[in-house]
């Protein structure tokens, strides 16, 4: 347990080791199951299928048999800034109804479904396609009983609002309640981790407080192989990646080799 991190500022963040990631997709299904993400009969329309965590598949473009493949798991980046030095993420500063904000205490970008009016400006502003609009009513047909696996910790969304990865914020609340009942205010490192990092079989996803030097994430981001997506845009994401492969790190930020991606 670390001292003084309850009233101090936390900055929760994620480090994804692309060398370990096998592209199995467990992070995606675990996320969907954890967060009551709606699933429709056809999920192949990638422009409209809701995936808070999404795998992008990239190849090094080399000819057979020198082809290499790598997957980029992409949650919400929970950016710090808007890319122009403004201290709101680009999606937050554009929101008309204050439905999404950057929590200064956790560094998590919230999304309030009952406040959102569905103007989708935030989607246009987000370069990571991390935000998803509910184009349909939640799919829970009568007599299918699908609503029975819904978790009460995350409220299901109605049609016409935007949703996105919340770093499993409800798990932070869960962890706090647990700590409180044990008479603690401070959280231990493992008390609060996201569903994706918990489920990842290859242990590729590490989650923790970037402000806490003792947390694994803080150590990992010091690696020479650590980088962030679109670093050049200065959105200051709190999701970091690790890869020892040069071509992968190349892919993460412009300039890009002019080959069309296979994802």
């Amino acid at each position: 347990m670390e001292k003084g991190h309850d009233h101090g500022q936390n900055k929760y963040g994620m480090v994804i080791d692309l060398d370990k990631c096998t592209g199995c997709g467990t992070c995606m299904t675990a996320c969907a199951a954890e967060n009551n993400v709606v699933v429709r009969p056809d999920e192949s329309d990638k422009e409209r299928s809701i995936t808070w965590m999404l795998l992008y598949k990239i190849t090094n473009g080399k000819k057979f048999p020198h082809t290499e493949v790598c997957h980029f798991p992409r949650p919400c980046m929970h950016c710090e800034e808007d890319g122009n030095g403004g201290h709101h993420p680009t999606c937050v500063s554009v929101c008309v109804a204050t439905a999404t904000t950057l929590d200064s205490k956790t560094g998590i970008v919230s999304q309030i479904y009952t406040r959102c009016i569905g103007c989708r400006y935030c989607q246009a502003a987000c370069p990571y396609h991390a935000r998803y609009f509910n184009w349909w009513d939640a799919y829970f047909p009568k007599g299918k009983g699908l609503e029975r696996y819904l978790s009460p910790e995350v409220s299901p969304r109605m049609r016409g609002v935007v949703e996105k990865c919340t770093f499993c914020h409800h798990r932070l609340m869960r962890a706090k309640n647990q700590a409180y009942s044990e008479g603690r205010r401070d959280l231990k490192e493992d008390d609060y981790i996201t569903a994706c990092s918990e489920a990842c079989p290859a242990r590729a996803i590490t989650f923790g407080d970037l402000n806490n030097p003792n947390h694994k994430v803080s150590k990992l981001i010091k690696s020479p192989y650590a980088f962030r997506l679109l670093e050049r845009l200065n959105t200051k994401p709190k999701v970091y990646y690790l890869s020892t492969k040069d071509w992968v790190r190349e892919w993460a930020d412009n300039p890009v080799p002019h080959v069309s991606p296979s994802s």
Partner: protein
Amino acid sequence: MTNPANSSEKPSQGGLIFFLAGFIPALIVGWVIFPMVLYSKQPQPINFNHKLHLDPEVVDGIEGDTETERCLYCHGFRDDGTFVGIPVAAQCTECHDDPETPLGDTRDEEEFLTKYVAGEKEVPWLSYSRQPDCVYFSHIAHVKMGNMDCSVCHGNHGESEMLPPYKENRLTGYSINIWGKNIAGYKLDTWDRMKMDDCAECHTKKGHEENNACFVCHK
């Protein structure tokens, strides 16, 4: 259609009367009728006497220095820190164990034992303070860590002998207890209303503005 020309020529008297003819009924509608229409009223399935159950003389084991401690005797916390809320019948039967032999002599207890305990049914209590699904509230954070008394939000419920009828706002579907007892929105006591602004007001007063962040209370 009356010809505007001549109507404008004819001088009209008693303007004020006509004005009041609109004004006064409007006031009545707004202050008297509207509140009656806005809220539906429903009695609880059976009565529960909080005062009685909080009396150490009557219920042994209930003693505790503060009233809050006594409340927690039934409305307590689970090991994972979540709040029990309205107790389930199983909790009641720890004392009211035998349907045949009531501990008191009220008809409510009798009904409770025969209808629910014997019939192994839960009592369909109507919750006065249920927040909507989009709201997250941690009792333990407030009561245990924040040392707040139950009464701050729930008032003197513990001293009541009768359960008041449950009133629900027809538009929002929320209980009047969280949606504001006073139709005009005046707040005489802290427990008159439990809306977002009330939570925020208290957070701010206690110097916890950071807890007004959206995700602290929304899920």
